[in-house]
């Protein structure tokens, strides 16, 4: 036993000495290590809940939509408003953001007046993607006397806008400033506000970008976003009148949906694309490695069986091989996926089912050649059994080829799965890069110039592919020296 152990150690050392010379191989190895670390550490890097909830639009509602990554500011003179969430909860003093103040103004018989003021210090050039104001109250269950509120916005320049008036609420009010209707359209309020500075006759409210107007200096061109940003503290104030004195504010939130988001921005649902990219690593590695390991080993053993058996067995096995080999993979996969909508594991099996014939043809010819090698005949002459010859003389000789092939067929598997996912035929539960690109295509990301949605997944596919191609080429050169030059 220890004979073989030391031999293995020797071979490994030799292999490493040769491999070290292959620069691209080392690069591939380094990339692979980084990828594996990222895949394993994914739950530490991004919130693991993201993956579970990837397809739940509700889960992502606090995030800006189609926001570019924040590092774009480096290339721009403008500062982007970042994502911020301020929370105030009545029952937990630790979760009471200083930016939100809830003040009981007055309490009398049959009423109570609260002021909820939310302060936002705006220091940026590009206004937030959206602002969401949320207010949750506890209401006496059997009462029909619902509370009402007014909403004011106080701008740094002193202007006060009444965004909502005598709005009644059941238990909570959630409003996004860009789209939600707070009783009356906020756009018309802004139009009225602007009318103090510019001529607004004929301006359609729907053309106004509310956040642009809110965060710009008042003046000429303010409706078109041509005035400079107005920096300073903005305050949103809810003035709430409870007609049931026992009612009270339990939670208030101000969500500043950034005009940029995280490392890779967000998509049309507000999903964190960086998280998507990170989750995708795991799937790419699983799909690529599992598919190629299964198909290569199937191919290797199929090929050896065929070549070593010879005769009619060989003939029959090779016919079958030829048939599978001549099948176009993707169209058939499309058909199968369209019929079954398979899980990612089934897709891997499908891919592997088409991936082995090429490997089998090569291994068969290797087996045929090895079978005729003199040292194999010598082993036979020594009395070695068929199994011994296969497993000690033939299989080990095909392993270098197998290892290189595994590495080299990874990209193909990843590309095939990505293609299926892109067509919308992937596993809907796995966050793969192909799926992200599918979503991008469905949301016309290219048309809308959302490059951060389109570029990174493709680059990652290419990167993982390259990693394995690098490794595979280096392995091939080291292990199959006929290619050495």
């Amino acid at each position: 036993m220890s004979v073989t152990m030391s031999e293995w150690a020797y071979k490994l050392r030799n292999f490493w000495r040769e491999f070290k010379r292959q620069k691209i191989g080392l690069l591939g190895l380094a990339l692979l290590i980084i990828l594996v670390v990222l895949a394993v550490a994914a739950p530490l890097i991004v919130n693991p809940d993201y993956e579970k909830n990837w397809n739940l639009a509700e889960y992502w509602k606090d995030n800006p939509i189609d926001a570019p990554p924040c590092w774009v500011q480096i290339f721009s003179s403008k500062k982007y408003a970042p994502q911020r969430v301020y929370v105030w909860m009545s029952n937990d003093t630790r979760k009471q953001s200083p930016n939100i103040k809830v003040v009981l103004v007055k309490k009398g018989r049959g009423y109570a007046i609260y002021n909820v003021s939310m302060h936002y210090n705006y220091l940026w050039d590009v206004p937030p993607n959206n602002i969401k104001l949320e207010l949750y109250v506890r209401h006496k269950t059997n009462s029909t006397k619902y509370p009402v509120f007014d909403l004011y916005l106080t701008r740094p320049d002193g202007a006060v806008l009444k965004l909502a008036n005598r709005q009644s609420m059941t238990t909570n009010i959630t409003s996004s400033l860009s789209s939600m209707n707070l009783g009356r359209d906020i756009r018309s309020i802004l139009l009225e506000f602007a009318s103090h500075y510019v001529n607004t006759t004929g301006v359609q409210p729907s053309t106004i970008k509310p956040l642009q107007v809110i965060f710009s200096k008042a003046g000429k061109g303010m409706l078109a976003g041509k005035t400079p940003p107005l920096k300073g503290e903005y305050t949103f104030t809810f003035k709430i009148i409870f007609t049931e004195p026992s009612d009270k504010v339990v939670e208030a939130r101000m969500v500043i949906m950034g005009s940029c988001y995280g490392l890779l921005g967000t998509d049309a649902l507000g999903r964190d694309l960086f998280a998507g990219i990170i989750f995708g690593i795991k799937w790419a590695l699983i799909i690529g490695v599992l598919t190629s390991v299964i198909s290569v080993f199937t191919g290797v053993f199929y090929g050896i069986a065929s070549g070593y058996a010879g005769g009619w067995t060989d003939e029959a096995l090779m016919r079958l091989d030829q048939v599978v080999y001549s099948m176009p993979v993707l169209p058939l996969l499309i058909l199968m996926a369209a019929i079954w909508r398979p899980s990612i594991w089934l897709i891997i099996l499908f891919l592997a089912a088409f991936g082995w014939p090429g490997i089998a043809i090569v291994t068969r010819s290797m087996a045929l050649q090895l079978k005729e090698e003199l040292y194999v005949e010598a082993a036979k002459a020594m009395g070695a059994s068929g199994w011994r010859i296969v497993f000690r003389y033939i299989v080990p000789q095909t392993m270098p080829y197998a290892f290189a092939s595994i590495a080299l067929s990874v990209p193909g598997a990843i590309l095939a799965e990505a293609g299926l996912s892109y067509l919308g035929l992937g596993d809907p539960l796995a966050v793969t890069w192909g799926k992200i690109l599918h979503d991008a295509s469905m949301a016309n990301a290219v048309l809308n110039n959302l490059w951060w949605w389109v570029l990174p997944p493709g680059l990652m596919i290419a990167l993982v592919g390259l990693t394995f191609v690098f490794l595979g080429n280096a392995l091939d050169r080291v292990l199959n020296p006929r290619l050495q030059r």
Partner: protein
Amino acid sequence: MASISVEEEKFKLAAEMAADVILRVDNLKVWFPLRRSLTEVLKRMPPRYVRAVDGISFDIRRGETFCLVGESGCGKTTTGKAILRLVDIHSGRTFYRAKPETVEELAKTVPSAVHSDIVEVTAIPDKRLKPIRREMQMIYQDPFGSLNPRFKIKTILEEPLLIHKIGSTRDEREELIVKALESVRLVPPEDFMNRYPHQLSGGQRQRVAIARALILNPQLIVADEPVSMLDVSIRAEILDLMIELQKRQNLTYIFITHDLAVARYICDRIAVMYLGKIVELASGTELIEKPYHPYTKALIAAIPEPDPSNRLRMRVVPIKGEVPSAVNIPPGCRFHPRCVAFDEHKEALKDMCPVHEPPLVEVDKNHYAACWLYETFKKS
């Protein structure tokens, strides 16, 4: 009753074997079927064969070196491999006088193939050949190809021991390996054990191959052109080593070569093969000095020698045409289309050579040839 006579008949050949004969080959044929195309199968055309070995018989005495000589494709290597059961035999039988322990072992597994100390090798099924494999070994022409490039020398030599479960511990086996390396003059053995074949020279590799063949203590060695890929001086060294080992271990060699000069140097008897048949068989010196068969004559005439006066004359090689394929062997004497003697005596032989296959007959004391020239003229 009938079965007994069959049994007797079966071992008649074995019983006749002289005491010093270690191997008897009787009418051995190795035919490789050609792949038939679909149309051939459909038209029910009979399968065609490459008749690599086409009915040869000879006895080999213990301790002798028996040479098979001929051009490439004459079936000499196939004969060697057929004796070792490395290729499938079409028909014919081989009998081998095995060591007592082997006979004992085979008597248990394949009793029908054993007759006193003689084993009918051709009657043993593939899976039961292992005991016989221990006694017959092969040395190959190509020292580069016959050693597994991924094994160390130690592992290469350990393989036969592991296969035959000789030496229960690693140390025991290592001792045997050291001895084997020493016996082929690869000293000190420690220097070679941990090397890989590619780290050795051609001559050293061939010595490893010899050590591997000898480590199981065989009786019979089939050496297939063991020196033809080696440089002259290494060739001399390996030949010398083989002679020395033969003396020391009482080995019997079947030595396959295309080079008559080498055959003369090492062999006791030489059999010349042409297209799957033995055409002439005699002792080394006798065959070269007094060849009977026209083919042997041509072969000898064709061999160049380090004599500078040769350049001044044209070499006369009494042969014409090229070797036909072993698929379409000419009828009658398979050599007659190329035979110069046949042309000369066409009138006398025209009913013999193209029609009937000549038998291998004794044309001189212990000198056999298969040629109508002698058979016919002897009769007349």
